[in-house]
């Protein structure tokens, strides 16, 4: 049998019912991850439609305040914690090993575990919502409103535990991604040659590592306040309500950027391919990513200008909030220069990228306004902020993301998405989006606060609210078209070939969809756009076993071959461990002792996960070689 088949059998995930839960291949997990995030994107979008219906008219009573507050809380929580952050990591899980020329992602079982944890977190939140226990204190869950005295029942506990789920998944993914990017690159892909998307994910993952612990700590303190009567946020016993806001926004602001930075990576990949040239100023791009990451930790307080703050602090955080616009501006200018000096291929992915220049720039400018204390004191917590954040997150992340879906779908499925539907869908999305969110700037200035389930007539808000509602349904239509387009091309789309866009990065060097082992002969790299550059020798790696999961590990800086690592095989234990962890998290909402007794199944499952099997060890020892 030929090397193709051997390799495929070595790396394939087992079939069948049980096999389905044992999958560890980064492409399998990646696709499931991406699909799940989009399912919850759609779910949260549906909630938004209900809210827009309620707000279409003054004193409307489609839904009451209790449900409305649950809906906007779950909408925000889902979009931030269950869609925007995970979807970027999901795309990275699928793409990075291919882009970097590796046969696998690092820690494939951990990767699977992170996915299951994420999935169970989603299910818990929506189970809670469907039985009327949806969190209702906002995605930011400010205490004391979310605290023990003012949120009876378990609603806020579900929120706090959802944070534990999603942050745990996010943190594990960040470890997986960092290790993959730093250690599993194709020989020759030194740091100054890795694709800009990989740079973006590397920077993002480091941010995740230092930001997410903050909200995990905060939500733990919240749940202990609620469950066992600690006093972290109880002013009467030396606690402080603002402590929550500091901890939350120390995470919350960087979070915006670890949604945004991966999208910048998509932008760079797509712009390079569709203007037939590398992006102008590679070094500048990388440095601005890093600068953004550092600065994003220095402006959390601009979410708290309306609390009482020392003057000096305000000035500093205003300065930071304005200056962080520069690194992004730098990238935008570099892309413009790239487009201006390239040869443009105006396909759907590029359209989505061009929309970024319109929407994100608007959102960035309204962000500059919000960074200025006096303006913020007027528009803070109004619909102006709703407009701003949707311009930044949808324009800055979702548009590039959908562009990226159009761009990489051929690689995922081997088939192209339909261009005509794609263009139509794009224009619907673009128009619907601006219809929905542009009026909200004005609504905010005209005095409409956020998070109100209704409003009186005669405030001059009716027209713009109705417009926003109409726009929301146009967006919904466009999303339906996107789904239809995907389904259609999965069924009978035109075959894509390996490299339908004539792109330069390595994921296009293998078949579409890639075989289980990614590369029959892992490539060796001699430049930034390997597929665009004239061949240099050696071209490919040889000497890796094809009947064992053997992966080439390279050095961090210059990606010199270092050693051949044996990678783990499919296993049910990541799934079982995730289930056990879920039991622990959910049970501990109801009794603190769950942390003790439920940790036993978790420990057992994890031990079983790591316990080496004799057969695999023997097989491994055949290839063993000491340094």
């Amino acid at each position, binding site marked *: 049998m030929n090397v193709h088949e051997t390799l495929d059998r070595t790396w394939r995930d087992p*079939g*069948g*019912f049980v096999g*389905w*839960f044992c999958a560890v291949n980064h492409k399998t997990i990646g696709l499931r991850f991406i699909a799940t995030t989009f399912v919850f994107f759609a779910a949260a979008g549906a909630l938004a439609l209900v809210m827009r219906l309620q707000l279409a008219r003054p004193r409307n009573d489609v839904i*009451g305040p*209790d449900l409305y507050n649950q809906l906007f809380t779950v909408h925000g929580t889902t979009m931030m914690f269950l869609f925007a952050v995970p979807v970027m990591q999901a795309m990275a899980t699928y793409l990075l090993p291919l882009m970097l020329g590796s046969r696998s992602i690092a820690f494939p079982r951990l990767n699977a575990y992170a996915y299951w944890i994420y999935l169970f977190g989603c*299910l*818990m939140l*929506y*189970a*809670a919502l*469907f*039985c*009327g*226990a949806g969190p209702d204190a906002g995605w930011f869950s400010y205490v*004391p409103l979310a*605290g*023990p*005295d*003012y949120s*009876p*029942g*378990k*609603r806020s506990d579900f929120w706090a535990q959802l944070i534990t789920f999603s942050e745990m998944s996010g943190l594990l993914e960040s470890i997986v991604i960092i290790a993959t990017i730093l250690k599993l690159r194709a020989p020759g892909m030194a740091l100054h040659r890795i694709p800009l998307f990989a740079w973006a994910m590397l920077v993002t993952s480091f941010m995740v590592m230092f930001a997410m612990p903050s909200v995990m700590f905060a939500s733990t303190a919240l749940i202990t*306040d*609620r*469950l*066992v*009567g600690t*006093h972290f*946020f*109880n*002013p*009467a*016993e030396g606690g402080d309500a603002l402590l929550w806001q500091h901890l939350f926004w120390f995470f919350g602001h960087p979070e915006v950027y670890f949604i945004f930075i991966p999208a910048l990576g998509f932008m760079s990949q797509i712009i390079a391919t569709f203007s037939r040239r590398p992006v102008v100023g590679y070094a500048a791009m990388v440095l601005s990513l890093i600068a953004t990451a550092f600065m994003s930790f220095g402006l959390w307080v601009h979410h708290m200008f309306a609390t009482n703050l020392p003057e000096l602090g305000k000035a500093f955080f205003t300065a930071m909030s304005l200056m962080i616009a520069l690194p992004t501006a730098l990238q935008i200018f570099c892309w413009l220069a790239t487009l201006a000096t390239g040869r443009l291929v105006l396909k759907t992915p590029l359209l989505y990228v061009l929309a970024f220049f319109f929407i994100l720039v608007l959102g960035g400018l309204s962000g500059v306004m919000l960074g200025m204390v006096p303006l913020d004191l007027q528009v803070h917590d109004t619909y102006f902020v709703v407009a701003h954040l949707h311009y930044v997150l949808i324009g800055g992340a979702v548009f590039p993301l959908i562009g990226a879906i159009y761009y990489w779908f051929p690689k995922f499925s081997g088939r192209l998405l339909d261009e005509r539907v794609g263009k139509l869908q794009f224009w619907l999305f673009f128009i619907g989006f601006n219809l929905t969110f542009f009026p909200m700037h004005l609504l905010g200035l005209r005095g409409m606060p956020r998070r109100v389930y209704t409003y009186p007539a005669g405030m001059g808000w009716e027209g713009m609210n109705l417009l926003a509602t109409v726009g929301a349904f146009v967006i919904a239509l466009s999303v339906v078209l996107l789904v239809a387009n995907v389904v259609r091309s999965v069924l009978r789309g035109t075959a894509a070939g390996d490299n339908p866009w004539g792109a330069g990065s390595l994921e296009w060097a293998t078949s579409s969809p890639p075989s289980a082992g990614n590369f029959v002969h892992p490539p060796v790299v001699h430049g930034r756009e390997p597929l665009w550059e004239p061949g240099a020798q050696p071209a490919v790696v040889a000497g890796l076993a094809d009947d064992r999961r053997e992966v080439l590990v390279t050095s961090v800086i210059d990606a010199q071959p270092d050693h051949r690592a044996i990678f783990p095989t499919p296993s049910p234990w990541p799934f079982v461990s995730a289930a056990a962890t879920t039991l622990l998290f959910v049970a501990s909402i*109801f*009794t603190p002792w769950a942390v003790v007794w439920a940790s036993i199944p978790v420990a057992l499952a994890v031990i079983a996960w790591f316990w080496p099997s004799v057969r695999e060890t023997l097989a491994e020892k055949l290839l063993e070689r000491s340094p």
Partner: protein
Amino acid sequence: MTRADALMVAMPGLVLAAAMLGGCEREQRRFDPATPPPMAGETIRQERNAYDVSQGKRLFRWYNCSGCHAGGGGGIGPPLIDARWRYGGETSQIVQSILHGRPGGMPAFAGRIPDEQAWKIAAYVRSMSGQLRTDVAANRGDALSSGPPESRRSREEIALDPTRPASASIAASAVSGAQR
């Protein structure tokens, strides 16, 4: 694969069903104050609804019940954090005590406190001695700490205790407490 998919689709359903059972009743928020108090023999809704119990806690504070039953720990009036009752620890009996008063000081609040509120207060009072499910009972308040929160109190066995000394001075102070 297909069976697997089916299961993945079914799983949310299962999780939902499980969560539904306990959840709905506890989490429901009846904003309509006209909700009638339970009929005799009917299970007491307020005691399985976290919102109603927390409302009871708020009203207990607002109506200054602790003026006599200081923080539930007693004072002029008998303590409520134990489950020893002079006039019975059943919710209906406590409602009776609240609405129609008791000899030896407990004033009648009928006409001062709407029935539906009395039932919520009674539910809360029972939670003080751990009579309610911990996922329904109130958590700690944003106030000075008075021992473990109601939701962490261990359940006391209800006992009748006719021997409690009654104090004549209760009535006045209770009324003034109630009206401040």
